[in-house]
């Protein structure tokens, strides 16, 4: 049993795409937040896929990877792809507390990607609280959680109760139970957690919060990456200008759920893209000589530039 994803992230197309979307957004935010000087904090496990993008696309050097399991920690130290990645053997709560207490760490903004395998739990909520209460101005928080029905709560009523236990009045005590169906959970939880963070920012930390990411995707399970910016009052307007741009990628209109494609299918599709009318039809697909599940073509067209190509390498 592993306590990290045993499959290399880079081989999972939807995970890869949502990561690229997030870094597209972070690159845009960097124009107002100067993220190159930030500290990147994440759970790099042994793959460090997000750390590589943080360094290559945002220019971040100061990076911290948190690893709870001892063996994985040793492997992570061995696999860290850059000299400036520090790997700590710690629970995320302790690592975040240490960051909050470090004067040096508080002198620069943080870009945190807390990528959990679990659903929303008290530990996840407590980590969010730590970041919201302590992150320096100009920081960005991304959180990934499992949002399948079972990971949120047992049955419709169990999910409503669970969400209220964790995040309080973000949903009404008498909210219709139909809102808690499994298919609605990614959107609902994104709204709930954004509302929770905004409310906590206003009531306790007395700071602005700008929601910036809400990206449901499918990666074996139904997953959600959400997050936002914790700017200073002076930075807030600039951040909102970026996240309200029509080309802001952080709120995809449909879940990132592309089809697994063979190299032959991928090559055939790429040869007719980009299309003049912005997408392809089932007719176009028929002319190429194959078919896809309903809706899959649109999602692929929306993300084809980020769709990864894989080849087996014999090392």
């Amino acid at each position, binding site marked *: 049993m592993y306590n990290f994803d045993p499959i290399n992230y880079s081989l999972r197309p939807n995970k890869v795409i949502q990561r690229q979307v997030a870094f597209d957004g972070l690159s845009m935010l960097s124009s107002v937040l100067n993220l190159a000087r930030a500290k990147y904090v994440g759970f790099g496990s042994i793959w460090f896929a997000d750390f590589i993008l943080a360094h290559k696309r945002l220019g971040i050097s100061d990076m911290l990877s948190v690893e709870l399991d001892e063996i994985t920690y040793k492997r992570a130290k061995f696999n860290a792809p850059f000299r400036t990645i520090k790997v700590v053997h710690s629970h995320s709560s302790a690592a975040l507390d240490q960051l909050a207490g470090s004067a040096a760490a508080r002198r620069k903004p943080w870009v945190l990607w807390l990528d959990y395998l679990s659903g929303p739990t008290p530990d996840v909520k407590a980590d969010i609280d730590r970041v919201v209460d302590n992150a320096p101005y100009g920081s960005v928080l991304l959180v990934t959680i499992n949002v399948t029905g079972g990971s949120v709560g047992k049955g419709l009523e169990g999910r409503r109760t669970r969400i209220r*236990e964790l995040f*309080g009045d973000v949903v009404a005590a*008498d909210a219709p139970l139909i809102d808690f169906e499994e298919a609605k959970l990614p959107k609902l939880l994104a709204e709930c957690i954004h509302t929770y963070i905004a409310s906590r920012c206003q009531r306790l930390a007395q700071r602005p919060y700008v929601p910036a990411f809400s990206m449901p995707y499918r990666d074996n399970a139904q997953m959600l990456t959400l997050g936002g910016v914790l700017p200073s009052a002076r930075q807030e307007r600039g951040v909102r200008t970026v996240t309200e741009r029509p080309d802001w990628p952080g709120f995809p209109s449909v879940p990132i759920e592309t089809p697994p494609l063979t190299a032959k299918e991928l090559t055939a599709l790429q040869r007719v893209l980009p299309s003049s009318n912005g997408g392809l039809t089932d007719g176009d697909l028929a002319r190429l000589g194959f078919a896809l599940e309903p809706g899959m073509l649109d999602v692929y067209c929306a993300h084809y530039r980020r769709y990864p190509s894989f080849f087996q390498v014999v090392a």
Partner: protein
Amino acid sequence: MDQKHVSGAPTKAFFIHTITKDITLQDCILDLVDNSLDGAARELGHPEPHLADKIDYSRFRVQITLARDGFKIVDNCGGISLDDAVNYAFTFGAVDNDKPEEFSIGLYGIGMKRAVFKMGKVVSITSRFDGRGDDPPASFRVPINVLRWRKRASWDFDLEEADPLPEPGVSLEVRELYDSISKEFDDPTFINALRATIARDYTQFLSRGLVIEVNGRAVRAHEFNFLVSDHIKPFRQEFKLHGVAVEIVAGLAAKPSDSYDPDEGGGSEDRSGWYVICNGRIVLAADKSELSGWGYQGAARWHPQYRGFVGLILFTAKDAAALPLTSTKRSIDFERDVYRRALVRMMEISRAWIDYTNQRKADVQEAAQLEGSAKPVALAAVAKSPTLVLPKLKAAAARPRTVTIQYPKAPEEVRALAIAFGDAGLSAREVGIRSFDFAFRELGADRS
């Protein structure tokens, strides 16, 4: 030396600051709802509320609208007569010759002013009253510009004629909200918390047909149910104390928790504890403090073991001054004799529940089996019973002496151990017991 006077008059700024400081925004809004309900009760001839009453509030409606740029509450609860407006409704505090309204909870004559001063700078109160008894019909408006009013020497407000509202009632609007208020009204968690409080605190009125809408959506009454079976019967009694009618209903609202871990199954949704209701309105909810006897005078303090218990105590009096409630109407005046006397009964009932939850630890399975057949019964339908009837546990009679072991462990480790025991669904408590039994057996402690 000639006799001189020194000024003892309060300044308006000090007055506004003082009356708005110690009350929450939510409680201010509830004060306005109270005013609407007092209007409805006036229209119905001040009926006496109690659990089995058949008062019909279905023709009354209160609509609350909260937004970043303003607050509005509109009711159709009869409106204010011109005489009441001129002499009582806008004075600061009840006037000496004011005759209190029967079975209301408005007492201090401060709620409406306190609410609007807390929220914003521009206020408009419009009323339509269609006449009752000697009071003629009247439609009027009282506009208040708080900043201008503060600069004037007079404490009076201007009253002007107004086009009549569509129905008899009051419409109160506040604009130019203070920044902190504006942010609260823009926060869905504030709106949802307000809905939950209204659902709970006005359940007596909502379940009798009253409609309260918050931002266009009606609030559903919080339902109190009690478990009843051959082995379980809630306590229910009525009696009089110092001229105040008292009703108590108390028992199991939910089956007790098998886990005593504060982190499991509690949280914001824990509705256990005592509820105190004064003239129909809940003024203390799900209380687990000394105010309702937990930990008071040597009694046991609240513990997660007692979850599942709910007690309601209703105080009803013609004159609200006889009720044991504070000026904010959000807590109990603990020093009042009527409350102290009632508290003795409340603590007896709590004691019975505490004893039962201690006994059931000896054989949770037997207890769960006896509790299992109980069905929920609505509050109003609970039969009278002079005692709280709880399952008689055989194990309790022959209970061996035991000690309870408690220790914290990471949830993922507990789950991993549950899987190792072959059942991922085991509760933390069960994992703890099996771990002990396993160690006891494997280390040969049973043979020593």
